[in-house]
């Protein structure tokens, strides 16, 4: 992959918690319009990797280069990283439960986030249309005025995905999007992610192999904090080391 196509590059990242190396010399890259699945057993460092990219955890060593100008994310705050175009969906659906679906989406819309411009914000026609489109996409058109806390688990997941899309990020980090969903809901989720990856980079952490297979994309296997294998799903599933790690336990 050449520099021009690479959106995010992790260069020999390490991080340790009280001596335990959660991430060990991890190197990784993703293109600017690519869907990528991250798999690996528990404790492989998947979530920690996302924490490092989004600024929640600081790397002990190594560099995270982002975008065409190779900005170092290691020095930026969470909100600055998010503003730079990296959106994250958490494992547990986290939406603002006391606010309506509509308000949740308005908060996520890609606009200047500084307090005073938010204070001056007036909703225009374009934004209203955008929210309708997003709601349509995540299947929440009929629920815009409902309080988010009243939604079902799957609907919350979608709302969060909808909020992610509303941010118009260049890189989407999605942690177990299909957890707790019915098979139909899963299919719908797959569609949304595949469509999103046409114009931006999407990283999906998932346990469910069937779901990964349906994503039909390049797969990175993490183990003990570093990359064990990378390639198509069939390729990695035949890798001896991968089999050992998954089945040997």
């Amino acid at each position: 992959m050449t520099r021009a196509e690479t959106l995010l590059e992790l260069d020999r990242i390490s991080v340790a918690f009280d001596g335990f190396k959660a991430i060990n010399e991890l190197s990784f890259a993703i293109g600017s319009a690519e869907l990528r699945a991250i798999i690996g057993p528990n404790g492989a460092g998947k979530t920690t990797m996302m924490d490092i990219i989004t600024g929640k955890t600081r790397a002990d060593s190594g560099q995270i280069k982002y975008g065409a100008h190779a900005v170092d994310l290691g020095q930026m705050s969470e909100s600055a990283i998010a503003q730079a175009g990296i959106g994250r969906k958490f494992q547990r659906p986290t939406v603002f439960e006391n606010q309506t679906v509509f308000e949740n989406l308005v908060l996520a819309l890609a606009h200047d986030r500084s307090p005073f411009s938010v204070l001056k914000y007036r909703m225009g026609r374009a934004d209203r249309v955008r929210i309708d489109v997003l709601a349509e996409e995540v299947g929440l058109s009929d629920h815009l005025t409902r309080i988010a806390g009243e939604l079902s688990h799957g609907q919350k997941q979608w709302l969060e995905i909808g909020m992610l899309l509303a941010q118009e990020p260049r890189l989407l980090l999605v942690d177990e999007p299909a957890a707790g969903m019915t098979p139909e809901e899963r299919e719908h989720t797959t569609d949304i992610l595949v469509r999103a990856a046409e114009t931006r980079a999407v990283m999906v952490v998932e346990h469910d192999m069937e779901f990964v297979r349906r994503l039909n994309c390049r797969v990175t296997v993490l183990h003990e904090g570093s990359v064990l294998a990378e390639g198509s799903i069939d390729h990695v599933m035949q890798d001896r080391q991968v089999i050992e790690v998954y089945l040997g336990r």
Partner: protein
Amino acid sequence: MERTFLVRNPSILIFIGVLAVVTLGATLLSEGLGVGLLSTSFIKTLGKTLCLCLAALALDLVWGYCGILSLGHFAFFGLGGYMIGMWLMYARTEEIVSASLANAPLPATPLEIREAIGTQIFGVVGGSDIPMMWSFADSLVLQLLLVLLIPGLLAFVFGWLAFRSRVTGVYLSILTQAMTLALSLYLFQNDSGLRGNNGLSGLQNLPGADDIPQALISVWFLWASAVSLAMVYIISTWLMSGKFGSAIRAIRDDENRLRYLGYSVEGYKLVVFVFSAVITAIAGALYYPQAGIVNPAEMAPIASIYLVVWVAIGGRGRLYGAVIGAAFVSLVSSWFTGGQVPDLNLGFYTVKWVDWWLVLLGFGFVLVTLYAPKGLGGLVDMLVRRKEA
């Protein structure tokens, strides 16, 4: 747009209506402008209560909406009082001093007047020099600016330090309490430049208004307090109903999520905290001229906690809840502690309410926290919903 704003927030009209009725009614019954049914001291109590409501409103913005439980808001309230008190005391003393120097063999020079003011104000703490911080005390405009600036600056510095280091929850509450304790201890010193534990006094006497009776002045302040409360209520409703308010409530519910949406949570907290501090300072600046005296004891941690109690009883997270709580509890409080409530004779023991009111309030507050966490405002919500249903 404004019409939809009012339509979406019908509480504004109700609130202003009630406030106007109370204020007008009190005016018509007052000694100053009305039939004299209400004593001047009652009008003052009413005016002071409105100021406390304003402070409670400001606290509700940071606590009910933004999730920052400040146990130190009276620091700003007191500072506001001190800032306006400096002008009131200085200007008033200047009048008195000029009058008494008028009979001097030589017409007084500015220096002589200044020295006499210094002795008059600071003699009580063994000084006569006017400290640097009183440099603007002769100007009402500058001192009014300081009412906004000094508490705002304190809130900004404290908030910047605290929010930047991601101190939240009870930790933050305790730090705010420490802040107000530090400030009150500092002001207790005689060389703090603000007369130590004597505080600033005689604030009820407005400079240049010698021939205007207190009965009239008290009505003026009642109106000033009511108008401020109404204005802040409208501004706050507007702030909290739009996208900004949505972001603020999002901080309360899940500030990390908001961070990953790209919002700099610290900046928002800081804006709300400073805004709230400035409102509280305005409330203090209106309160203390009615109370007549401001001293460091006013800023003791307990005072700020009472403010929190009012908001909690009224119901946080709703502006009218804070106002109802402050009005209700502080009026009932002054009723009980004023000794007007008849003692309760149990036969073997006579309950004197002056002594037992705080016990009642304390346990009552525990009950409210346990069984009505939404406070009196929650009751209003329930009634409204029942009517709708």
